[in-house]
């Protein structure tokens, strides 16, 4: 099927280039600026989240150590650090950077459009997200601090209010509002991605010729459209339970802090269902853009086409569908009917098939390649390695009967940090090293980049692999310390993880330095430094305001033409020659 957009629609730029600073860099309608804004937000968020995790690790490894600025970390402080780390990382890093960030910057260029379909919605999308982040950060500064109920905010702990503990007052309310705003922001973004991909493609850019990351962003935005429109009602109901005295999630007869709660009839499991119906697809919202980025970048540096591109696309679509049938595997032991647990475990295991196929396709692409070991390429290879690791540990947790032991142990922490945390981060790193020249017209320092990669790869394994061992030993997650119990003996492992985490964190400073230095002093980047095929490399680095300087590219080739006999002796054919 091919959709030819009428020149009329695709050609007119929706708005003139602004001149004032505010309209140009702050409230800009330009998807490129908005993309950079999202990436900037994600950078701030990831630094915040990482610092929070250092405090957590410090306390876990050295319980008696006085943390700089906090002193002796109290149990509630630990849980608040944990909650904010999870919330910031999952929402404001893993969702914004690979999806909203790179998607906003690259997708319109890759489809040959001059901007997103709805630039105003696009701007709102970012600023609403920004407000959401501001609200979340604000909760650090309210009396008794931010929420401590984890990024999953299980009711009734999250619903009954301040009696449930420090941070469960205003802090938890702010958390709920923050997530509500975040949903709105991402929904606006998803609308844009969908309309832009479907309607603003330039001549000849059929769906079949879309680059794989654009495909991934498109599928992700469809998933996000559904997921966030379910999380939003959940947040609304939670807020009402907290501030308006309703009882959606709060059953009768709860006595919290010696106070009989004036609620009745609510269902705590209702929150869990609504949350995880969003929560599991959210995992794929975080990782599918990574899939796309890897599948786009790997062939560039392998100098050979991606193996089985159509199989790859089919797998991504399959994952997208299946992601809505598996949420129950987070609730095997939640008091949900045990029969449904067995039902949920089947699709959970089945979803590993497309994931496994995709992984094999990547490994098959590497086979017999003439790899160019740029930093971006290395992060793609690293992505494959950590994704395999994290994916396989999922096999354990997908089985209810094993979950009765491993559930809520560090095994789970290790699993999801590999599969959605580290893997997604590697995707983000790959994208950064790959598109930085296009975004800023300067190359990043490859030598620093490679050091950054090697140390990070070793670091993440040193941090997260031992967590699986802890899990086997029954070490429970979300504990601020392990006083005089069977977990006390695991302290040395926690020490090791803490040290590894602090060192790996320090290594990221190399990346930050590289970013800043290259932004201002990197060598000038040519239009197509990597000899890649997709449309963003057919324009200048950085692209002009309307992306192609008024040209209307006509696409004649797919994105996958590497290792072929191209024009003038090149081994690749660009989509718009």
């Amino acid at each position, binding site marked *: 099927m091919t959709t030819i957009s009428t020149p009329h629609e695709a050609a007119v730029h929706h708005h003139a280039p602004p001149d004032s600073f505010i309209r140009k860099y702050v409230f800009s309608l330009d998807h490129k600026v908005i993309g950079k804004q999202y990436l900037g937000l994600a950078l701030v968020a990831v630094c915040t989240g990482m610092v929070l995790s250092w405090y957590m690790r410090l306390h876990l490894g050295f319980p008696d150590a006085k943390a700089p600025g906090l002193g002796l970390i109290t149990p509630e402080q630990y849980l608040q650090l944990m909650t904010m780390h999870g919330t910031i990382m999952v929402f404001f890093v893993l969702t914004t950077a690979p999806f909203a960030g790179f998607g906003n910057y690259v997708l319109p260029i890759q489809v040959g459009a001059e901007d997103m379909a709805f630039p105003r919605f696009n701007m709102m999308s970012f600023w609403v997200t920004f407000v959401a982040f501001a609200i979340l950060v604000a909760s650090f500064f309210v009396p008794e601090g931010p929420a401590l109920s984890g990024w999953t905010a*299980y009711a009734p*702990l999250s619903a009954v209010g301040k009696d449930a503990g420090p941070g469960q007052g205003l802090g938890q309310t702010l958390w709920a509002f923050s997530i509500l705003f975040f949903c709105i922001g991402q929904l606006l973004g998803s609308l844009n991605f969908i309309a832009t991909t479907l309607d603003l493609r330039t001549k000849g850019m059929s769906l079949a010729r879309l680059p794989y990351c654009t495909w991934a962003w498109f599928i992700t935005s469809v998933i996000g459209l559904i997921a966030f429109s379910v999380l939003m009602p959940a947040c609304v109901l939670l807020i009402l339970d907290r501030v308006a005295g309703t009882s959606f999630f709060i059953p009768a*007869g709860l006595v919290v802090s010696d106070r009989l709660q004036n609620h009745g009839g609510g269902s705590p499991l209702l929150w869990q269902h609504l949350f995880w119906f969003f929560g599991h697809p959210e995992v794929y919202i975080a990782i599918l853009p990574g899939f796309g980025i890897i599948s786009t970048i790997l062939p560039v540096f392998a100098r050979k086409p991606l193996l089985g591109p159509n199989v790859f696309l089919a797998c991504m679509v399959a994952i997208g569908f299946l992601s809505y049938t598996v949420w129950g595997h987070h609730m095997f032991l939640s008091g949900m009917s045990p029969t449904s647990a067995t039902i949920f475990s089947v699709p959970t295991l089945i979803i590993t098939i497309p994931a496994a*196929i995709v992984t094999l396709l990547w490994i098959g692409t590497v086979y*017999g390649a003439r790899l160019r070991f740029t930093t971006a390429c290395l992060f793609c290879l690293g992505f494959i390695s950590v994704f395999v690791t994290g994916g396989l540990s999922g096999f354990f947790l997908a089985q209810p009967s094993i979950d009765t032991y491993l559930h809520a142990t560090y095994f789970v922490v290790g699993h999801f940090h590999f599969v959605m945390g580290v893997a997604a981060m590697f995707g983000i790193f790959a994208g950064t090293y790959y598109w930085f020249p296009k975004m800023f017209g300067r190359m990043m320092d490859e030598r620093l980049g490679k050091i950054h990669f090697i140390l990070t790869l070793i670091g993440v394994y040193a941090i997260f692999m031992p967590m699986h061992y802890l899990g086997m030993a029954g070490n429970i997650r979300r504990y601020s310390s392990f006083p005089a119990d069977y977990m006390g003996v695991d302290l040395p492992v926690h020490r090791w993880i803490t040290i590894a985490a602090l060192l790996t964190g320090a290594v990221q400073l190399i990346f930050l330095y590289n970013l800043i230095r290259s932004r201002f002093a990197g060598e000038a980047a040519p239009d197509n430094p990597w000899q890649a095929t997709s449309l963003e490399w057919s324009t200048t680095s950085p692209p002009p305001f309307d992306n192609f300087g008024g040209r209307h590219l006509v696409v004649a080739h797919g994105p996958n033409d590497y290792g072929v006999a191209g024009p003038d002796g090149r081994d690749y054919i660009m989509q718009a020659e």
Partner: protein
Amino acid sequence: MGKLFAAIVAAIALVSAGVFVARIWWLPPDISTLGPAIDRQIVETMVATGVLFVLAQLALAWFVWGTGDEKNRRPIKRFPGGATPLVVIACTIVGIEIITLTLIGSKVWARIFLEPAPPEALHVDVQAGQFAFYFRYAGADGKFGTPHPDKIDEGSGNFFGLDPASDTAARDDIVSAELVVPVNRPVLLTLHAKDVSHSFFVPQLRLQQDFVPGLDIPLHFTATQVAKTEIVCTQLCGLGHYNMKTYLEVKSQADFDQWLKDQAAQQ
């Protein structure tokens, strides 16, 4: 660079797998009738995934090691047979694993959660609250008093909100902070929460189940050895979560009866 990457990935894969094989960190010995089945399944999954893990990582390392570079312009090789064999391999291997694991697993799961407790089971009422477990035995009359949330008064030790003044069944209820059970006798727990969600986890029983406020959740097990082990909360329940734990004591029937007598005297 490629060779370095290959070496690192291979090393990581072998070391990681080695630690699992060496069982340096492993499950505690099990003391329940369910333990062996669950352990067997964990081991089977460990073997299956472990092999795939090592194979995949080593394949990646090997391909990267063997890749040509810009200097020796070795011709690019396509993967033999294209994507189809890979799809077939993935579907068959993973498919087989899924089917086998699900078949075995669902049996174990059924034994834990689907089969009802045998009638002779000892019935213990378990209440979780921030941040402690309390266990209630029916006492001489074999009947539990009705709990009244509004009557809960932890300061004077009335954790269940019993009303002995008007409820005679409540007067001989035995409340303990530890779970004490006789060996080799089925035990039926009724889990209910006083305030927020909690969870009941005994690693040595390989048994875990959430408390959900507003629900009474049954859970049954049979301990096979006299032992003392820990019960921990695994559902984030607030600031004292890390410290929400107590002990499971498995005693011989005689010792258990004696203990019950002593407790009854103290109430």
